[in-house]
């Protein structure tokens, strides 16, 4: 049973560029949440997708956007990258109705130069 997968593993971008990160949820899961984890900090909720709609959003600017596909996989897009966007981006999947029980992928390490 495949767990949550994310791609790419690492990414280096320069300020002002745009980036797309990808996530495939655990088999049987239909909900994807995205979190940002700065070095030495706990993950911070960005947003959650269910039934291809953004269901809730954390305190992140509109430069952060996402998408969920019919197969439940998801993308996170970040525009106009800032140095402060450098972090580990984590995708978590869950089954709708089981609030809170989320399983995380290995993350994508984004470095903005």
């Amino acid at each position, binding site marked *: 049973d495949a767990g*949550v997968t*994310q791609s790419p593993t690492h990414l280096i971008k320069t300020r002002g560029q745009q980036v797309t990160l990808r996530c495939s949820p655990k088999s049987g899961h239909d*909900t994807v*949440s995205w*979190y940002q984890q700065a070095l*030495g*900090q*706990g*993950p*911070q*909720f960005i947003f*959650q997708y*269910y039934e291809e709609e953004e*269901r*809730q959003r*954390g305190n992140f600017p509109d430069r952060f956007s996402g998408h969920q596909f019919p197969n439940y996989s998801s993308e996170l897009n970040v525009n106009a990258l800032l140095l402060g966007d450098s972090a580990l981006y*984590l995708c*978590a999947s*869950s089954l709708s109705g*089981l*609030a*809170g*029980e*989320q*399983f*995380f*992928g*290995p*993350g994508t*390490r984004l470095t903005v130069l």
Partner: protein
Amino acid sequence: QQQVKQSPQSLIVQKGGIPIINCAYENTAFDYFPWYQQFPGKGPALLIAIRPDVSEKKEGRFTISFNKSAKQFSLHIMDSQPGDSATYFCAASSGSSNTGKLIFGQGTTLQVKP
């Protein structure tokens, strides 16, 4: 009100010791409290979780103690091993929020010495 405060920031124990990590919350709507273990360069892995209708839950060497009146919960690791050396995060979420978004503590870096 949305914060989860975790302590200590770091912890060193000898093999076989029982490290204890504590978390406190304010939001009484929280009703799901998981603990995650994270190794360097990896994503957090769900260890154990508890809901407020019980005061203690054990899974293998990991135990959560929950004090609803004090709004505190803690993780105990029995017979700790060097392989338990990792960063541990507590978290909380509310079932009244249909997303169950997790609010994380700041993390505790645990080192278990051989």
